[in-house]
């Protein structure tokens, strides 16, 4: 009896895993803290004066310029016109890359012919430094928006091909046999089983492509004739207006992030069933 009484009086053994102080900081504070630390370091280097202000402007100077560029953008100034051109290049480039990349990916992943004959060529082209094609696109398509769209699409197509083809290989023997025994057509097997199963891989390709399409559009503008944001950056840097270059890059990266987030958002809508559909915590 006494033994039982003793056990009743023992304290509960609720315990929790130890979490280090660093890991307990909420995200907003952790990210804000890092930003403050970075700016402080920047200010320090600037104040010591080891680097010329033309090469590295101070944080306040840059901040003021970011505000200026932001105001120009929001009041519909010439920078908004330039940004709009870049946005158009990126959207057209991405749309073309998705269309071509998806179709090529299905050709490679679904048909033996594609895998045998088309894939080797794709790999060969993919290993080339694609930016080196920019002068060709310029020569073929002129100095307008088309050459930039082409370069952006060219760079972004390959990750989508690879992602789609890899996605189509995901379906295992059991799933294939199940669809066979159900008498599914090739079309049904593709759209009701292989493509949905491959969506995580396809979205990995799309995310890489979203980054590539930005790089392609800006590189295209650098090489000449552009009227977009890349051109603004080129002009600012030729005038040694380093704060302007910085602030333009920051707004450009916002555009890139928006594109990336849109892909992540779509992925979460479509691939809700997949565990790793949360992409590195971005946008969560």
């Amino acid at each position, binding site marked *: 009896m006494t033994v039982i009484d003793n056990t009743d009086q023992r304290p509960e053994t609720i315990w929790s895993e130890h979490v280090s102080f660093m890991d307990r900081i909420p995200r907003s504070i952790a990210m804000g803290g890092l930003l403050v630390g970075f700016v402080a370091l920047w200010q320090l280097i600037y104040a010591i004066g080891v680097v010329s202000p033309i090469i590295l402007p101070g944080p306040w100077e840059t901040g003021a310029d970011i505000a200026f560029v932001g105001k120009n953008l929001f009041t519909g100034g010439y920078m908004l016109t330039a940004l709009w051109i870049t946005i158009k290049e990126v959207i057209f480039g991405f749309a073309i890359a998705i269309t071509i990349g998806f179709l090529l990916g299905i050709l490679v992943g679904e048909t033996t012919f594609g895998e045998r004959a088309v894939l080797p060529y794709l790999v060969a082209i993919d290993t080339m430094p694609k930016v080196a094609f920019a002068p060709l696109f310029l020569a073929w398509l002129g100095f307008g928006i088309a050459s930039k769209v082409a370069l952006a699409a060219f760079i972004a197509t390959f990750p989508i091909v690879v992602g789609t083809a890899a996605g189509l290989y995901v379906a295992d023997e*059991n*799933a294939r*046999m*199940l*669809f*066979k*025994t*159900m*008498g*599914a057509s090739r079309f*049904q097997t593709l759209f*009701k*089983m292989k493509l*949905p*199963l491959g969506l995580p891989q396809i979205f990995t390709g799309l995310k890489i492509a979203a980054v590539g399409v930005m790089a392609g559009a800006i590189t295209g503008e650098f090489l000449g004739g552009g009227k977009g944001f890349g051109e603004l950056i080129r002009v600012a840097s030729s005038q040694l207006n380093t704060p302007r270059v910085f602030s333009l890059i920051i707004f450009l990266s916002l555009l890139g992030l928006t594109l990336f987030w849109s892909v992540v958002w779509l992925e979460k809508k479509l691939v*809700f*069933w*997949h565990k790793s559909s949360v992409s590195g915590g971005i946008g969560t």
Partner: protein
Amino acid sequence: MNALQRSAFDGAGLAGRPVYELRGVAKSYARRSIHALDRVDLTLTEGSFSSVIGPSGCGKSTLLKIMAGVLPPTEGSVYLEGTPVTGTRRDIGMMFQQATLFPWRTTLENIVLPIEIRDGKKAARAMHDEARALLDLVGLKGFDSVRPNELSGGMAQRAAICRMLITKPAVLLLDEPFSALDELSRDFMNMELQRICMERNATAFLVTHSIPEAVILSDTVYVMSPRPGNFVEAINIDLPRPRTLDMMTDPKFGEYVRRIRARLDKGAFL
């Protein structure tokens, strides 16, 4: 192939209309020229339950795939209801070791998938009530809108049974369907399977590694030799229907198990 040899494995003495007829079915895989199956003869009569048991890699799955029309044989003929099997057929229901439910579909949508493939989305929706009744039948009432990754292995396998049954197939080909389950749920599922087969007068052919499972379910147990696979013995199980789990303690049951084990030990694992 003489008549005497044929009669040894044909229908194993059970009266009934032949549903499946296999004559001299052999299979070699071109890759590495593996001789997987060696001239198998088999007749399954309507409403019968047969099992095949044999060592790993002896060609059981290969045989099942050939019967289902998923894989062509390299020799011999396969007839189902008198017509040659040269591709997948609608009157066959097949089940594998893995449940293979698709995670973007609810359990109910997974179950009506064969209907959706065959007759389209609208027909599939019309079968929802039927599918719910099947879920009820396998003890998954109320799980219709649950996603498969929230089901346990046994529950997923039960859902897979419903998916097989929704088309009301006259023939069930089962490749170790419950081998991933624990023994208790396995026994339970086997009894369910028997009930369903008897209810629908379905012809079933089961691949298994479990001797007791083969004996408790089957009218005939075929013992297969190691690769190249061939039937070395067909054992008629003379136990009354419906079978119950209590029969496993029957001395007759033990005798069958011993006989099959002896047969497997003799040739199989040497």
